[in-house]
């Protein structure tokens, strides 16, 4: 029943073609806020993967078994924010109790991304149709989409952090120093990622 081609397609699409930061332009705030240091970018990236995976699986269940049967899918956004926020709080408490090491590693980034638009974005995308199969996302597909979108976010964040660490040392005109040059860098990265659109999985595998 599991469509392997679809899963591979979702993975590559979420990481490269429809990268959350560089193609969909979601979650830009943490992208610029936490990309100053490679180590904190890694921590943030791990936290995003974690939260996206949990959020996409729970919101899929809520959407499929509560919202759609009652015909109130138009309340998705509000309910998803509620669910994601509560879920992250719960996960944070559980982690602190049962896995202090992981809690330490994720640190401040876990509560920070509670209402990150990228997390909400992946939950909302999962309620639509899978462009590869033309069917609604299955549970496995939406979970994978969450994880892979998180990995895509982490990839963009780590690339950016690496570039910004190099930028710190370079001779930049004073007016462009700091955030301005980061914005320009991010724009160039987005242009580069546009190249992945040529992979065009949707037409070749889908259908």
């Amino acid at each position, binding site marked *: 029943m599991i469509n392997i081609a679809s899963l591979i397609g979702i993975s590559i699409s979420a990481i490269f073609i429809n990268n959350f930061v560089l193609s969909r332009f979601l979650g830009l705030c943490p992208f610029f806020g936490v990309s100053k240091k490679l180590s904190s970018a890694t921590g943030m990236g791990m936290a995003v993967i974690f939260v996206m995976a949990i959020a996409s699986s729970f919101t899929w269940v809520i959407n499929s078994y509560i919202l759609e049967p009652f015909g*109130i899918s138009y309340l998705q956004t*509000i*309910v998803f924010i509620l669910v994601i926020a*509560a879920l992250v709080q*719960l996960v944070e*408490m*559980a982690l*602190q109790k049962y896995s202090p090491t992981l809690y330490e590693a994720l640190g401040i980034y876990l509560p920070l991304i509670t209402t990150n638009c990228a997390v909400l974005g992946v939950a909302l995308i999962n309620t639509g149709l899978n462009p590869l199969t033309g069917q609604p996302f299955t549970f496995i597909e939406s979970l994978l989409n969450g994880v892979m979108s998180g990995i895509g976010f982490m990839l963009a964040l780590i690339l950016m952090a690496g570039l910004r660490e190099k930028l710190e040392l370079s001779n930049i005109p004073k007016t462009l120093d700091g955030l301005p040059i980061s914005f320009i860098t991010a724009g160039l990265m987005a242009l580069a990622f546009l190249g992945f659109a040529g992979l065009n999985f949707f037409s070749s595998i889908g259908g």
Partner: protein
Amino acid sequence: MEILLPIIIVGSVGLFLGIGLGIASKKLHVNVDSRISEILNALPNANCGACGYPGCSGFAKAVAEGKASASGCIPGGSKSAHAIADILGITASTGEPVMAVVHCKGGIAEAAERALYNGIQDCLAATIIGNGTKECQDGCLGLGTCVRACPFDALKINQNGVAVVDPEKCTGCGKCIKVCPRKIISLIPKVHKIFLACSNHDRGGKVKKYCTVGCTACTLCVKATPSGAISMENNIPVLDYTKEENFIPAANKCPSKCFVDLVKKRPKANIDTKCDGCTLCVPACPIPGAITGETGKRHVIDKDKCIGCGICLNICPQHAISLWGTGSIPKQARMA
């Protein structure tokens, strides 16, 4: 009626999540955290970084984990150390409260300049260009690098162009010491109100030429301190505050008035009727002629000459001498 269904569903989802979180917060409660926030409340929360941790929260965490000492917060001093100790259930070993002092008082009025400086108004910048504008190579440049470094607004450049520390505001965090290019700021215990306000290493005659309040290395202060708490190092007296010495005689003996006494008016000694005229106090007094009297008769102290050092208090076998007047009494006199 159509509106009811979404209200009920979203409401019940919210209720369910709320109750779930409520139960979870009780079940998954971690005790360690409450201590950290309590410690954080006991700290000044100035985030000065003097403890070596990133901000007060980092320090609070380290204290709760036993990695940092309860008395590690310098600005909080003994107050927060004891509060933290109460939270942790341990006894705090607090160091003496300390304050920064500037070892120079030769300003515009006293110290000669050798150049006119129009560069960046910063001591470090001025030092790089020909080691500052003062003839004295160790004097305060008065451009306020330390003032800008102070997180507690305790330093200012006075009208004479020299940096002075406000003892009330200073917490002894030591940030000014690190930034001073002349290295003329140091910490002294707050109970000691006296310090040497000169750092010049030149010989006497040379100093006289360019600063009227410069130390001439005459060593009179060393001689006035029999315990050896003052020693000469590289033509400058060094005060050893660990010896709990009474520096009042030394400060008064200094011919160049290099010492600063933060107590403006010292209390004066007074001999009461218990005096049996044993004369022991006369040679003990550092000021000749301040105590007079014949053997067997009650002695008298000349209030104008008395410097209030309190040495005679410990000497008197009859306990007939006490300090009168305003100002704080020197530590040793109080212990007697």
